[in-house]
């Protein structure tokens, strides 16, 4: 099986994630879509590593996982703080700042 298919799958997952960020309204779901984008990138990195015949791509995927985990910690803390205030995690409700 050629590795190109994995690149296409990765591009598809990345696009699904990006569209999800733009159309979903719940902050937690938006954040999950960002995580989907990061993991789609991981698939790309590993595939390119396979194509290039070296392990750098796999090592980079580990770095990305660590960063994603750190981002979850910070992100959920911020989303929790705003949820406790407003009793809602909808990003349409946070609309005090505009224009």
């Amino acid at each position, binding site marked *: 099986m050629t590795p190109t298919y994995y690149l296409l799958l990765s591009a598809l997952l990345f696009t699904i994630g*990006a569209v999800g960020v733009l159309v979903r309204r719940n902050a937690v779901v938006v954040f999950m879509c*960002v995580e989907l*984008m990061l993991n789609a990138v991981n698939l790309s*990195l590993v595939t390119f*590593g396979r194509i*290039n015949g070296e392990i750098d791509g796999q090592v980079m995927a580990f770095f*990305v996982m660590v960063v994603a985990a750190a981002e979850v910690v910070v992100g959920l803390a911020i989303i929790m*703080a705003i949820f406790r*205030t407003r009793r809602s995690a909808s990003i349409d409700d946070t609309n005090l700042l*505009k224009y």
Partner: protein
Amino acid sequence: MLNPFLAQQGGAIETPQIDYAAILPILIVLGAACVGVLLEAFLPKHQRWPVQVGLTLLTIVAAGVALGAYVGDAPEQGITTLSGTVAVDAPALFLWGTLLALALGAVLLIADRSVEPGGAFVAQAGISPGTVQDRAQVSSTGMQTEVFPLTLFALGGMMTFTAANDLLTMFIALEVLSLPLYLMCGLARRRRLISQEAAVKYFLLGAFASAFFLYGIAMLYGYAGSVRLADIAAATAGTDRSDTLLFAGFGLLMVGLLFKGSVGPFHTWTPDVYQGAPTPITAFMAACTKVAAFGALLRVLFVAFESTSWEWRGVLWAVAIISMAVGAILGLTQTDVKRMIAYSSIAHAGFLLVGTMAITDEGLSGTLFYLLAYGFTTLAAFGVISLVRDASGEATHLSAWAGLSKRSPLLAAVFTFLLLALAGIPLTSGFVGKFVVFSAALSDGMAPLVVIALVFSAVAAFFYLRVVVLMYFSEPAPEGPTVSVPGAFTTAAITLGVVVTLLLGVLPAFALDWAGAGGFALSS
């Protein structure tokens, strides 16, 4: 079966050579940040503020001394260390010095407790806005002192970001600088709803942008077989891989970098976050994040994509024009002074991009000088904004600034000077900055873009002068704001910003020499 790649690697892994003297400033800043977290855990509450402030200021000074000691006998061509992932060269050293000096000013603003009893930060981030505890914390003297280690982490990330010589290091540094900023945006003592909203918006959009940045890295890894900037440059000279990977990767990478620099169509977070975040943090972000983002952008364009500049320059032309237009025209319609400075920063990002696109020595030194000049001016401007207050906190609506010169002639004069510097009037650093950047662009054959940039800087000058007219020629409102008498910290920060703005305007030669001291280290 064993992984075939692992079998191919063979041989022992060599320990990379580390030039500790070169990266000592970063190590000091990040090490002190870790110590700060420990202090937060072990010190009793009443001791934390003085110890954290002392540690943070000491750290920045110590990192500055280490930097100064290294600059004296640094090799002219610069070096790369940590097996080529970090480059310590003339631009990196200049940007480190700029970042440390700006961070010193920002930390002074963050630590100030004279204009408000406990400072600009919430006593405990866990208290929900609008509750009884929240009303109690507004008048308390407590403060969430984690802000200081978070500032140091962000500063360490920014310094690494400007020196990163491969894209993976750059990505890690980007996250190290961003994650603390997301948190600090949500820690305002007053108006906590908009502060938290700013944090959520900044976080979600920032994570979205860094996903694009990362996908760009993956594409370029596929193209060049390496994420080293020098290897990417070598691959653009001749490789059998598809150019689609190169340009898709370049575009996605730029989205992430331009987002951090709040340029052009990627600016949408800037006004909201600048307005909602506590003013000292806005000052830190506006000054230091801009420096870090453009430092990284310069390195990526100069080292990795110099030879393909004819392919991407057209796109960045459009981005720079959009950025200048959005900043200058939407800035005209603003009624909040923090939002107005945010749009001004978007316009300045466009001017900076004009200099960045000129892939010449003048373009490099001009952009570096512009970053230094703009950082100090905007830092002092936010320091002044934090002093104009009414009963509910800072009075940022422009109507409250009417007739301010009658209440406080000194404050009005200082703010006028800073606005003139942002507009680029001669005898201020803003004029010299614009001059060197535009002349570099002109000599690199971008005359039409320079004309457009001059038109938009004239448009932007109008909204700065509107505030000046408002302060001097309007009657003050009867229930207007008061101007707080700043304590030593805020006075020092504003004085630092104003003095540098004036000095760089009158005697720019020293800083221009330093900015033009040398190019990027090219060896990998």
